[in-house]
């Protein structure tokens, strides 16, 4: 019986140019792989592949040169060390993330935790076309949020406390947007200038600036044949529940409205951003 290439592809096995050879994509969340998993992957590459792996552009790991007849065996071998196959085709792909606030001094959110939650909720979900999530911890945007169909960028919702302020003037300069002004014992923030980067909070020597986590979400990014920057159409989101409600609404909109083979950016372009924006604002408000 001929191999069912579509099913193999959906299960993370991409057909190679070489006859009956497949590149096996692995499930990776937020670019994090344990040492134990790495050992098993290395062993599998030696045993079943050509003794190397390919690191994909979206934090994935692929083992090329898996033989058709060994597909089940390699899956079992990796499963024993908690390594699962990835996906390809029209569904939710690898959720990418930077290290975020867990390790990075600039991180405003725990990007990996958010990525894991998105992965649990949506990974592999069948849709009209591929759908990519990416989570970046701050405005430095190492993870390039806007190139994803749905990008999440960490930010801080800031608050200034007069009692703890020594009016040293550091925050005024730390702000790259010129949003903070200090005059006569008063600090003012221009709300439309603040991009929630949180630099005032991290630079403040006394802790007078407090920041709570915020999420800036962009929609409709794509960076392949066609290049579109995802758009931020919502105010900063202040809690995870709202973030997930918005993500649910966005992915449902895509599932309900996209034509087969149509990326999110194209759907939004075809149907217009207005009705989508209204739906997102409703989800945002709860």
């Amino acid at each position, binding site marked *: 019986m001929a191999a069912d290439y579509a099913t193999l592809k959906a299960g993370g096995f991409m057909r190679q140019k070489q006859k009956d050879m497949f590149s096996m994509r692995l499930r990776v969340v937020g670019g994090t792989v344990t040492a134990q998993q790495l050992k098993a992957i290395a062993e599998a590459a030696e045993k079943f592949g050509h003794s190397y792996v390919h690191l994909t552009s979206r934090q994935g790991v692929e083992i090329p040169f898996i033989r058709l007849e060994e597909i089940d065996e390699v899956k079992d071998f990796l499963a024993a060390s908690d390594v699962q196959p990835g996906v390809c085709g029209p569904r939710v792909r690898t959720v990418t993330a930077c290290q975020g606030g867990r390790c990075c001094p600039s991180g405003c959110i725990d990007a990996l935790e958010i990525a894991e939650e998105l992965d649990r909720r949506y990974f592999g979900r069948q849709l009209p076309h591929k759908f990519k999530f990416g989570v970046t911890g701050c405005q430095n945007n190492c993870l390039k949020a806007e190139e994803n169909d749905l990008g999440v960028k960490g930010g801080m919702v800031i608050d200034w406390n007069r009692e703890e302020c*020594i009016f*040293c*003037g*550091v925050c005024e300069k*730390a702000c790259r947007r010129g949003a903070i002004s200090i005059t006569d014992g008063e600090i003012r923030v221009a709300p439309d200038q603040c991009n929630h980067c949180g*630099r005032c909070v991290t*630079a*403040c*020597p006394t802790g007078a600036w407090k920041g709570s986590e915020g999420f800036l979400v962009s929609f409709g990014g794509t960076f392949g044949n066609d290049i579109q920057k995802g758009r931020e159409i919502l105010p900063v989101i202040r809690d995870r529940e709202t973030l997930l409600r918005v993500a649910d609404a966005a992915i449902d909109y895509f599932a309900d409205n996209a034509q087969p083979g149509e990326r999110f950016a194209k759907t939004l372009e075809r149907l217009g951003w207005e009705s989508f924006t209204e739906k997102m604002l409703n989800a945002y408000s709860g």
Partner: protein
Amino acid sequence: MAEFRITDTVDITDVVCPVTFVKAKVALEELEEGEILSIHMNDGEPVQNVPRSIKEEGHRVLKLIHNDDGTYDLIVQKTEA
């Protein structure tokens, strides 16, 4: 500047990031706990980043003085971690 008793000053306007911070850090190492360093720096990246790095090292930032010539003096009290 009369409000702070400056122990030493360091000029980091002649170097660029990341040497700006390194030079300031070395100058702080020369001081005793509680002594005060005045760090002379340029506008732009130094003034955006050096104060934060000093804070992350555990020292106490007291004041950022804007000079008329577009430079800044960051007043820092040495604090042992």
